[in-house]
């Protein structure tokens, strides 16, 4: 256990070294949220609500989902792909830890860093500029916390899967890019899933991506209430468990047919 905690700490410190990155990071997010703010106010123009969300809830939704993204987002798929391509993975495999677990912990270190130095200050700045409505009830914050931790796990699991695919595709920059686009769209980052037409909602309902962004953001903006919150968290939990199966299967299979290119 200690070695995994150490991984989180090391990655956290590594992130701290690149300070300009997070100043500009906060700016990027504020600008992005700003663009969506104007766009959504134009879209609402006079309408009280769309799909049960008011314009304030909508802009809060966008702000929260981008800020939550800072926590769950990581590049471990890219790192795994690089280590496989460079042949370093062979050394990683003989080290006394679980490679995939270690990668997840590195992702977590990165997430905690961005949450503290990026999302929190970013949220405060954005909150001053744009009229947002932050949840005041402690229970909402509690549910939200549980929910973004589950988001992190699901997103990292999908990243691990994409990373492992490098074993079979040898070069999978394309897949990594495609995955990123799919997550942005199907996770509800750009648009709440309730805005999509019914048939599209049904498709997204059976995919794991809604567990990444839609559920925590809906909980935070109080677009979900009572039983809906519990259902949302259950959906996330189910995906956390279900996704373990393909990861383990692919991982075992990949280790058997490991081809080290170079290295």
């Amino acid at each position, binding site marked *: 256990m200690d070695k995994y905690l150490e991984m989180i700490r090391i990655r956290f410190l590594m992130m701290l070294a*690149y300070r*300009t*990155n997070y100043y*500009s*990071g906060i*700016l*990027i997010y504020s*600008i*992005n949220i*700003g*663009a969506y703010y*104007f*766009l959504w*106010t*134009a*879209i*609402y*123009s006079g*309408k009280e609500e*769309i*799909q049960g969300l008011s314009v304030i809830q909508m802009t809060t939704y966008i702000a929260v989902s981008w800020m939550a993204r800072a926590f769950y987002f990581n590049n471990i798929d890219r790192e795994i792909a690089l280590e496989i391509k460079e042949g370093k993975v062979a050394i990683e495999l003989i080290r006394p830890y679980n490679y995939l677990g270690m990668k997840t912990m590195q992702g977590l270190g990165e997430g905690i860093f961005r949450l503290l130095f990026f999302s929190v200050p970013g949220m405060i700045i954005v909150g001053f500029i744009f009229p947002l409505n932050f949840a005041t009830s402690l229970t909402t914050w509690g549910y939200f916390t549980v929910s973004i931790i589950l988001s992190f796990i699901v997103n990292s699991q999908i990243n691990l899967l994409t990373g492992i695919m490098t074993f079979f*595709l*040898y*070069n*999978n*920059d*394309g*897949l990594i*890019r*495609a995955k990123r*686009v*799919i997550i*942005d*769209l199907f996770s509800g980052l*750009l*648009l709440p899933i309730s*805005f*999509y*037409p019914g048939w599209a909602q049904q498709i997204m309902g059976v995919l794991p991506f809604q567990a990444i962004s839609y559920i925590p953001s809906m909980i935070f903006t109080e677009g979900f209430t009572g039983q809906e919150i519990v259902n949302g968290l259950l959906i996330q939990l189910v995906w956390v468990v279900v996704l373990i199966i393909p990861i383990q299967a692919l991982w075992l299979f990949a280790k058997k047919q490991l081809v080290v290119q170079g290295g």
Partner: protein
Amino acid sequence: MFYVSIFFQYVAQYMKTRMQYRTDLLVEILSDLLFQAVNLIFILVVFGHTQFLNGWVRDEIIFIYGFFLVPYALFSSFFNIWDFNDRYIVKGELDRILTRPIHSLFQIILERMELESLFGVITGLIIMIYAGSNLGLTIEWYDVIIFILFVIGGALVYASIFIMLASIGFWSDARTSIMPMMYNIGNYGRYPVDIYNKVIRFTLTWILPFAFVGVYPASYFLGKTEWQFYAFLTPFMGVSFFVLAVILWNHGVTKYRGAGN
């Protein structure tokens, strides 16, 4: 002529390396298409809930997006320099570039090109034709020439902003992530600028003129007379910003002291 032949030699080499990993190339083209679809889906879903966006109808917004994709595809195929600082300055790769008798910017453009992004031109045209026929737009023969001029202008605007940002690297070799930020700001230019407040509109027109990549030139084809002046300014903005960018670059190169080992 020398530059032209170098260009084609690079293209030939590029094709060879890309063909090495064919599945990946295919997935990459598909993911580009998907990326373009995402923004289209966004517009379609949003207009499922509203009729107008500040007086612009759905198909007009789609048309602007389709237009935007064309200069953007040219830009992303040839000016893929967002990691210039990391790759060339921090790692000292620029030393290698500067020893060769070809303009440094030209070499970097050739080394980093991503020709598969050119598929965006096709997607953009399809989207424009779809939206244009919904709107009942008619095309005159000279519109084709104007379109090409506007596209080149738009691509140059994009390219100039990114070249200028890359040039900052000559003065400061710290890692920054201003480049991805610009990609986000570039998205502002895809929507009618009249939905934003005055400061943002001014910035998008005169400081970071991304509005010249989307809404301004596209509004000419949409027959929006109130934007005509800005539409015809597109090629001039493109050329003058590009000249500025190259001057800045050339000046920056003289400041480069070499890093890495």
